[in-house]
Each structure stands twice: as structure tokens, then as C-alpha cells.
């Protein structure tokens, strides 16, 4: 029998009677067999959980891999390994692939490719065929095949009519539409946030207005159709306000924020380092503050990595032609901690709420339940070295840096990862 005893650990799981209590947890053959004050024995592997937290496994609802078609960026194996070491037991995969995930076959392929792995993978289907923003893809068929929600990924849906139909149509089977909010005509060819820093760097700005106009539009569309809507990676103070107000008047809206937007501002671009080139762009310090307030008051439901792998050839070039995105699966926890969030809030935003939004069940940390959990130490430091980067890509500004906040164990589907 395969047994693991975690001693003296703080359990963070509001669903469990052990929430916020320190206890010993015994996991045997993938099942939480006992919680309490437990003794050791010869056949046990023992972990000291002092100062550490045990919570439901993290879930990332905004991840880009490269399967199918872009495997040189990331494949299921490499990406899952990165996710696992970052504390994730579940992911929603963006449809930004070649071909895009826009029909039952791509959805089924991803579901089959990842079956039984430690990290559960839930494909997100495209809203539109070929992600072209013109006509609806077969949303219901994809939902039946396992698509967990719908989004055109990093392409905003420009056509308001199409977005309205997507919201209305998916409501028929309780599907969820996710909006990446950016008005393309206002964002134009903006390379970074519009502000003093873009002026100083001589770069075209992508103003907060581009995001907020689209947030307003989609909030109205969701309200009109009485549909649920989820906003991906909001980044501006204005978006937080708009969503807060909409929720107060009863719009069924949820949203997430990328971990890097909680820590960095557009000042990071002063050296033209394309590792900080992301979309939406890094904003101002007042936006960062508003995002943190939004997380704390519940306006922002979830934190995502927006893991976006790119080969060196797409990143190590002039800023203007560099691709957007950073790999983030392994650095979400350190960034959330760096942003000053408490372990309890992190668990809510990183493990509980994403699953609630996607209507996924997770078993509480209680004796008798299958183990789907993560053990992390918010104070442990580690070096994000090349050897410890499990992604196929290396487009992260944190490589070679010492980060605080370490995942020490992950358990799911009777499989475990020990750091």
C-alpha cells in the first residue's frame, strides 16, 4: 500500500470541517484515509507540514498549450508537468491552436490525450468557427464532447451580434461564454499600455479604454440576453468598477485576473524586455491597486496564469514584433504571494472559485474522499532555474530568480508529485 502522512499541516478548505485547523493527514492509495492526530509507522512516507497549507488542488482557467499544431511551444506532457509543479490539478485550455479547438474532434482529442493524468484537462471551445469571429462554431456538440466553456481565446469577438448570439445560444444548454475584452479599433497596433511610459518609449499605446469599451458592451449583451458571462484577464481599474456595478444590478458576471497583472506595471518595459510583453498589457500602479481591491472585495473571482509559451524565435526579437505572453504555470503562487494575498484568499481564487465558475465539483478534504489537493509553503524559497522550468518554452521574466512560495506536493487521480 502506498501511504503518505503529512504531519502538522494547516488545512484550507471551507468545505471541510477541518478548515483552518492544524492536523495530520494520511493519504493511502489516492484516498484521504484519516485526518487528526495520527501516529507514524514503518510503512509510511512522512512529510513535515509545519508552516504549510493543504488545500484543494489549484485550477487554472486560462492556459495555452500548443496541441494540436504548435507542439514546439508546449505539448500536453510538458505543459502538464509545469502545471503540476505549480500546484495545479486542473486546467482549462484555450483554443489558440492550429487548427483551433472549434469542433468536437479537437475537443475529444484533448480529452483523450490527457485522460488519467495527474492534471485534469478541460478544453475550452471556440465561440466562432476557425476563431474567425464570423459564425458560431458547434457549441453544443463541443459541450457534449467535453468543452467546459467557450471563448475565442486571445481574439476578442469584434462582432457584437455574434457575441450576443453566442451568449443567448449557449444559455440554452447552460454553457458559459468567456469574453476577452478588447476593442480592436481602439487598441489598434498598441504595443503596451497607453500612458507616460509608452510616451517615453515612443511606442503606440493600447489604452484602458479599449478594454473597458468591450467590457461595457459585453455586460450589456449579457444583461439583455439574461446570460452568464465570464471576463478573462481584466486589467484595468475601470473594468473592475464596471463589473462591480453590473453585479450589483444583478448581471450574472464573473471574471479573472492574470497573476502578472497583480504585481507588475508598464514601468517594467523601460528596457524593452519582451518577456514583459503581454496582452492585455501591463498597466499602471493605480490599476494594480484596483485589481487587488477587486480581488479582496469579491468582484474578481479568480486568478489565472495566462500561461502562454513561445519559442525563443518569437520572443527574442525586437519588441514590436515579439509575441505576447509569458509562461506562468509555475509562478502563479509566488506572484500571488508577492502581491500580498493571504494563503486563504489565494486558495479561494486559485482553487475554489475557478471550479465554481465552471461548475466542476471538488471533493472536500475529508476522510474517505479521493485526494485532489496541493501542499504549499508560502515562506519557502526556490530558484526558478532552467532545469526547474518544465515548460518547453522559456519566455518568463522570472527565470534564474529566487521566488518565495513553493509547492511541495500535489495529489490527484491517485498520482502524486513530490518536490
Amino acid at each position, binding site marked *: 500500500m502506498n501511504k503518505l502522512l503529512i504531519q502538522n499541516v494547516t488545512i484550507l478548505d471551507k468545505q471541510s470541517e477541518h478548515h483552518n485547523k492544524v492536523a495530520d493527514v494520511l493519504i493511502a492509495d489516492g484516498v484521504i484515509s484519516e485526518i487528526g492526530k495520527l501516529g507514524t509507522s514503518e510503512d509510511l512516507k512522512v512529510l513535515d507540514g509545519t508552516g504549510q497549507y493543504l488545500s484543494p488542488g489549484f485550477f487554472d482557467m486560462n492556459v495555452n498549450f500548443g496541441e494540436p499544431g504548435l507542439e514546439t511551444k508546449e505539448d500536453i506532457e510538458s505543459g502538464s508537468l509545469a502545471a503540476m509543479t505549480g500546484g495545479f490539478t486542473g486546467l482549462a485550455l484555450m483554443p489558440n491552436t492550429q487548427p483551433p479547438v472549434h469542433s468536437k474532434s479537437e475537443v475529444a482529442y484533448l480529452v483523450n490525450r490527457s485522460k488519467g493524468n495527474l492534471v485534469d484537462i478541460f478544453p475550452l471551445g471556440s465561440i466562432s468557427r476557425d476563431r474567425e469571429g464570423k459564425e458560431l462554431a458547434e457549441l453544443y456538440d463541443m459541450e457534449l464532447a467535453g468543452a467546459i466553456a467557450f471563448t475565442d481565446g486571445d481574439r476578442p469577438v469584434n462582432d457584437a451580434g455574434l457575441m450576443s448570439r453566442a451568449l443567448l445560444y449557449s444559455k440554452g444548454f447552460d454553457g458559459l461564454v468567456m469574453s476577452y475584452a478588447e476593442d480592436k479599433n481602439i487598441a489598434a497596433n498598441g504595443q503596451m499600455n497607453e500612458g*507616460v511610459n509608452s510616451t517615453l518609449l*515612443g511606442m503606440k499605446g493600447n489604452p484602458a479604454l479599449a478594454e473597458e469599451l468591450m467590457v461595457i458592451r459585453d455586460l450589456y449583451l449579457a444583461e439583455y440576453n439574461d446570460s452568464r458571462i465570464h471576463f478573462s484577464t481584466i486589467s484595468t481599474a475601470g473594468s473592475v468598477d464596471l463589473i462591480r456595478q453590473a453585479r450589483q444590478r444583478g448581471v450574472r458576471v464573473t471574471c479573472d485576473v492574470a497573476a502578472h497583472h497583480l504585481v507588475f506595471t508598464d514601468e517594467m518595459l523601460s528596457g*524593452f524586455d519582451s518577456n514583459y510583453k503581454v496582452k492585455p498589457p501591463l498597466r499602471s500602479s493605480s490599476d494594480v491597486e484596483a485589481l487587488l481591491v477587486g480581488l479582496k472585495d469579491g468582484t474578481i473571482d479568480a486568478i489565472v496564469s495566462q500561461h502562454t509559451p513561445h519559442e525563443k524565435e518569437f520572443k527574442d526579437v525586437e*519588441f*514590436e514584433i515579439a509575441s505576447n505572453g509569458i509562461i506562468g504555470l509555475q509562478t502563479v503562487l509566488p506572484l500571488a504571494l508577492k502581491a500580498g494575498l493571504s494563503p486563504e484568499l489565494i486558495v479561494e481564487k486559485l482553487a475554489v472559485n475557478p471550479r465554481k465558475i465552471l461548475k466542476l465539483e471538488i471533493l472536500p478534504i475529508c476522510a474517505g474522499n479521493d485526494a485532489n489537493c496541493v501542499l504549499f509553503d508560502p515562506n519557502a524559497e526556490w530558484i526558478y532555474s532552467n532545469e526547474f522550468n518544465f515548460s518547453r518554452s522559456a519566455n518568463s521574466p522570472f527565470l534564474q530568480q529566487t521566488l518565495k512560495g513553493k509547492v511541495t506536493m500535489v495529489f490527484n487521480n491517485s498520482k502524486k508529485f513530490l518536490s
Partner: protein
Amino acid sequence: MPDQAQKLSTRHLLGIKDLTVNDIELILDTARNFKDVINRPIKKVPSLRDITIANIFFENSTRTKLSFELAEKRLSADIVNFAASSSSVSKGETLIDTVNNILAMKVDMVVMRHPYAGAGVFLSKHIKAQIVNAGDGAHEHPTQALLDAFSIREKYGEVAGKKVAIIGDVLHSRVALSNILCLQKLGAEVMVCGPTTLIPKYIGALGVKVEHNLLKALKWCDVANMLRIQLERQDIKYFPSLREYSMMYGLNKQILDSLGKEITVMHPGPINRGVEITSDVADSTQSIILNQVENGVAVRMAVLYLLANQR
């Protein structure tokens, strides 16, 4: 020549942003000496003998390239010229590969113009040679700002306290940003003036005055630096027509004479006669446009000479 011990604080000239006031003054003082040199019967000095400079232009340029070439030749440097269209992964060779290919032939310095902001900064992190930025997108054009400051100093004795209005397409201009930074470091007051659609929304935060009325700007300033309308860099239309632009922001003799004071007119060239400036203004005694061109060679000689001392 200035004292050998006087050195710049930087190995490259990527932008005015990186220069200290001392650096700028050292360059301007050195340029004054070189201006004497190029007005002698024998215009050439041996300062950069055995130094090879590559002029790499990823964007069309006639006068900046010519000015750099003359500066290099008058310092006795060996030079090679390379003109290429800017490339990306999808379109062939990358910037680093292009430049490394040239450096493999033992080149010491690179003078580069590139359509993208920060291209020089990017390159400086990847190659060993010294880099002189000859214009990167709408970011910086440091030698232009230096020669403009030199020309103002030459005309008025000093830059400090002077009021300079930069007029025209500020949004697409690298000259504007470098000029603002350079003039401010030297103690001048700066105003930008142009159509509302061609003035960056946040430019006021750089400490410049913002004006949209040409006459008011001209009445305020000692020096008017007329920028070229960069039609080739405007991906969309920011004003309805050149005719209308010219009606609102074209500088003509009538306006100039109505000011009741004598201001100095500058232009980084090439000028669009009849658009941002009329011929009678460009050719008037108030215009120092051709002095700027002459000073450009001296300033670029100073920059190359001082950077070579840094090797």
C-alpha cells in the same frame, strides 16, 4: 581636441534618456572643435583610423546616412553600408543574425536606423560592438536632438532659459522625444504644438507645455522646430488632408512677420515645402535649417570620436 580623460558615461548612444548633462555638454563642446576642423581646407583628421563602422539602415534615410558617412570619413574610419528591409521570423533573417553576420567581418561600431522603437536597446543586449542609434521607430533620434541643441547654442550662446516650440506630428516623431529630453536637460522650456490627434495624450507628464494653436505657440517661443509630417508612418489618417493641416499648422511668412519679434525657425528635414513650412520661411534669414545640416556632421563626429574613446 578635448582632454582624453573626459569620457561619456555610456558605451553606446542609444538615446538622450541615457545621457547625463555632462555627457551632452561634452558632446556639444567636442562638436564645436570638430566644426572648426571641417571648415579648414584639410577637413580630415586621423582620430578613428583602424576603426571600422557599419552603417546599417533598416529604413530609408538620405540625409542622416550621408551625414554619418561624412562624419566617419572625416575621422578616417573605415566604413561599410548596409541597407535592408526590416525582417521578422516570418520574413527571413532576424536582426541579431543580420548584425552578427556583419560583425563577424570585424566591425567595431554600428550606426543603426530601425523602424521599431527600442531596436538599438535590444541589439545592445546581444552584441559586443558599440551602437549609435540613428533613429528607432518613434522612440529616439539622439544625434538629431544633439545637433538641434548645438544649433540653438550656436545661435543664442546657451540653451538654458530658451523657449522652444516643437510643432507638428509629435505622435510619430522620434525627433520630438529626443529633443524634449535633451532641451530639458539643458534647461530650456519646451512646448509641443500640433493637431490634437498627433499629440500623445500623456505628453504633458513629461513636463512640456501643450498647445494646439500655432499662433499662440509662435508668440510664446524663441525657437520653432517644425517637424515633418510623417505620412509614411501614419497607418491611419489622423487629419483629413494635407491642405487642411497646412491651413492650421503651416508656417508662412505672413504669420512670422505678424509676431512682432524675431524667432528662429528650425526643421530636421527633409522639408515638405508648402506643407509644414513655406519656401519663403525656409529660405529666410530666420531659418537655420542649413546650419543644422552642417552642425549635424560636427555633432556626429563628436559622438563617434567620444564613443571610440570608450572602447
